[in-house]
């Protein structure tokens, strides 16, 4: 898998269109399916996260502030006019940042909720899956001939804070994960033959 990705990055145009197109189409379909699956997982993760945070999380009237997360922005409407490869590049960058943030959240949750192994496992899996989806996007981008992205800076670790801000951060990260994965699914859907694009 890794070798295959690298070979595409070296010379995305090297393969003939005859051999590349079926492979590319299959890869796009696979990545799209992964994004769709992870969207569902992200929704489940968000629900489970809320369940383990205690009050006021999960209460009907609770509406936490949408705090900005360092190194990661929410998918905004300003991206709507961008071409699909550019949107996919943004998706991949966001997923890479999310993977690191999810690990951070998992560590804080391990302190705050050490008796929630399923949540911790879900957080760990979510970080791993976000990396996998980002790598798959990179493969698709390379096959499309889009320029490979440069090294992504690791999001700065937030300063140690209290339990509530840590929970808020986790909630925000889980929400962003859902949003970005969902947007990735939509972006890839435009490339799938027969899709909306």
């Amino acid at each position, binding site marked *: *898998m890794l070798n295959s990705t690298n070979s595409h990055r070296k010379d995305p145009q090297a393969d003939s269109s005859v051999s590349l197109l079926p492979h590319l189409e299959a890869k796009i379909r696979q*990545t799209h399916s*992964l994004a*769709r*699956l992870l969207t569902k997982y992200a929704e489940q993760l968000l629900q489970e996260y809320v369940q383990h945070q205690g009050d006021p999380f999960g209460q009907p009237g609770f509406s936490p502030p949408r705090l900005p997360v360092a190194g990661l922005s929410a998918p905004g409407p300003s991206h709507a006019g961008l071409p699909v490869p550019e949107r996919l590049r943004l998706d991949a960058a966001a997923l890479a940042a999310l993977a690191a943030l999810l690990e951070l959240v998992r560590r804080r949750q391990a302190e705050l909720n050490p008796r929630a192994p399923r949540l911790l496992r879900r957080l760990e*899996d979510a970080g*791993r*899956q976000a*990396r*996998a989806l980002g790598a798959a996007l990179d493969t698709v981008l390379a096959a499309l001939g889009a320029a490979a992205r440069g090294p992504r800076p690791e999001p700065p670790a937030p300063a140690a804070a209290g339990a509530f801000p840590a929970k808020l951060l986790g909630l925000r990260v889980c929400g962003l994960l859902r949003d970005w994965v969902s947007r990735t699914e939509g972006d890839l859907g435009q490339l799938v033959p027969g899709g909306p694009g």
Partner: protein
Amino acid sequence: MSTLQIWVAQALVIFLTTESVGELLDPCGYINPESPVIERGSNFTAVCVLKEKCVDYYHANASYIVWKTNHLNVPKEQYTTINRTASSVTLTNVASLSIQLTCNIFAYGQIEQNVYGITVLSGFPPEKPKNLNCIVNEGKRMMCQWDPGRETYLETNFTLKSEWATEKFEDCKAKPDTPNSCLVSYAPVYFVNIEVWVEVENALGTATSDHLNFDPVEKVKPNPPHNLSVSNSEELSSILKLTWINPNIKTIMTLKYNIEYRTKDASTWSQIPPEDIASTRFSFTVQDLKPFTEYVFRIRCMRSNGKGFWSDWSEEASGITYEDRPSKAPSFWYKINPSHTHGYRTVQLIWKTLLPFEANGKILDYEVTLTRWKSHLQNYTTNDTKLTVNLTDDRYIATLTARNLVGKSDASALTIPACDFQGELVESKCYLITVTPVYANGPGSPESTKAYLKQAPPSKGPIVRTKKVGKNEAVLEWDQLPVDAQNGFIRNYTIFYRTVIGNETAVNVDSSHTEYTLSSLTSDTLYMVRMTAYTDEGGKDGPEFTFTTPKFAQGEIEAIVVPVCLAFLLTTLLGVLFCFNKRDLIKKHIWPNVPDPSKSHIAQWSPHTPPRHNFNSKDQMYSDGNFTDVSVVEIEANDKKPFPEDLKSLDLFKKEKISTEGHSSGIGGSSCMSSSRPSISSSDDNESTQNTSSTVQYSTVVHSGYRHQVPSVQVFSRSESTQPLLDSEERPEDLQLVDNVDNNDEILPRQQYFKQNCSQPETSPDISHFERSKQVSSSNEEDFVRLKQQQISDLISQSCGSGQIKMFQEVSTADAFAPGTEGQVERFEAVGMEAATDEGMPKSYLPQTVRQGGYVPQ
């Protein structure tokens, strides 16, 4: 102080004790290697090294060492004494899995003491694991399996490694009791390729399997569909509808199914065509089932693209198809009670129940109808299988139907004879005797047979006829005799056939046949044939039938005629092709072409002119085929230089001629021009003329080109007619011009003959011709010619004849002014006179195309 002494004493005791114990356990030597593991079948060498203190203590050295394996002495030949304290032993082709090897020494030369012992293990290095494959049971972790290879007989560890492109996963170590599989500790993530491989290692080496890269979704074994249920349809008794709940995996992949079914009592399963259930669904209607039958179903699923594994079968579910009307009428018979009272008799009707596959449901009741006359009906309904009724002595017809929830069966009918019925058997009549067994639970299968009270010969014989008659054989056929004519069982037939003069031949044929082939017949022969049918009591001849064998077999005539016809056609075709290829030769010898003089026309030849057909539409009337032996004479320039006098006269002639051409062209036709030829050709080269005359029989000289065809100086036309020339045409002076021209090639580079018709006044070619003429004329004559051109232009709209007369007159006049051209003047005057004469009366030498009817072949 005392306490200190006590502590020191205790420590000394412990030290001394420890040292003494250590000395007791200290072996006298050791074996190297300590824990060997060797490959099975290989050689192994061990060395026993004695300690010096033991050598001294036991008064022994390495030569006193004795090696033992599993308490048995090793042969001395395998020992090697290395030095005073060391001895080695080599074990060859070690086959035992475990060997206890001990080093022993004879203390004091007599007492065997064990010095040291080791265990030698043998086995095999691990082989490369093969056939690595993984399966992802839905909702469970991924398990991979592989072929571990041969038994190593050693402790061997198998480790399944796995990684994504982005990270590695925790190793999965196979349990010792299941070295060929491992269940990974993490949940699989679909749609992300994972790479797995197996690493194996033991004391003798390591090996790695091939890497396997796959998407876990392609290795899924779904959970089976559950909650399978079966329901029937009241509308259709041949269907059952299955419904089920799909496994959760359906949310990420499409599924296909296998559905199998069987009747409850059957052991083999039938399968629904897989193509009918090749996509995700939650129900299916099975058709073509038997009514009111219990079926058992089961279902399984897998990914629709075939990548992955089938799920286990679901739990079985059963259902019963809905009822249908009985498919068969019940068997039915009667018993008549012999007691007869007051004109009535007791009749018991009996039938048996239908089999389940005939009843197609639960039989609710039976309906019996008795008909005495056509209008007398008696209906009975019962759910029993018998019915007793009192009937009159009349004849009855009874019908019986079975009814279930859906409907009634067809009716079975039975005739109950009248009471006075008495059978009377006669001879030579065929009777069908049927016996139906009656058991306690109903009737059995009836059996029938034919019988005669007494047989007799047939009342008539079979009528034989031919079905097909060949050259040497004939196929005879006949009909079975009617039963009334048989009078017994037909045992066999005999066929008699003969020719008119030959003996009769008889052939016996089995009675089951209705056809027989007579073979070895003679062709073109009349045969008479008859048949006799035999019963046990005798035979009866049928009528005689005659037929004649044909002379030829079918297709024989065609086989002769067709090749002959083909040969004839081929010969004819070849002859035609030969004649076609040699048609010119044949035509010349058999029917040489005699041109029709009335179709003669003038040919034109000029290097600047297109072919003849460009002359005009009138010329095109005469196709090339009309002209045979057309000779075109090209007169090339002659190297022979003429005498000065000749040059002079010729030059003059040339000028004259050019002027004449300029005046004559475009005004009149060749008839007008041809008259000038004899005048111009005033040369006295008779010999040359004769030569030309011998090859060109008819020729006419014209002076002008035609339309765009501009002859260089002179143009000649020739008739292709082979008719004898008229006297005037045969005169040498008429052809002198040809020879004259021929002799003056220095002036005229090339002269051609060509044809030209009259009555085609053309203006422009004449003008161009004048321009040409001017170029070849002298400068003194040039002005004069221009003057003449102007005059000619004025005259050009006049008619041919008159125009020509005027023109030639003027030409003559013009030439008269030219110095040194008197001869030519006279000749031009002659030309003018001849042209004038032409207008009034045709000359006999004129080409036939010039004037209609102007020449009559002689």
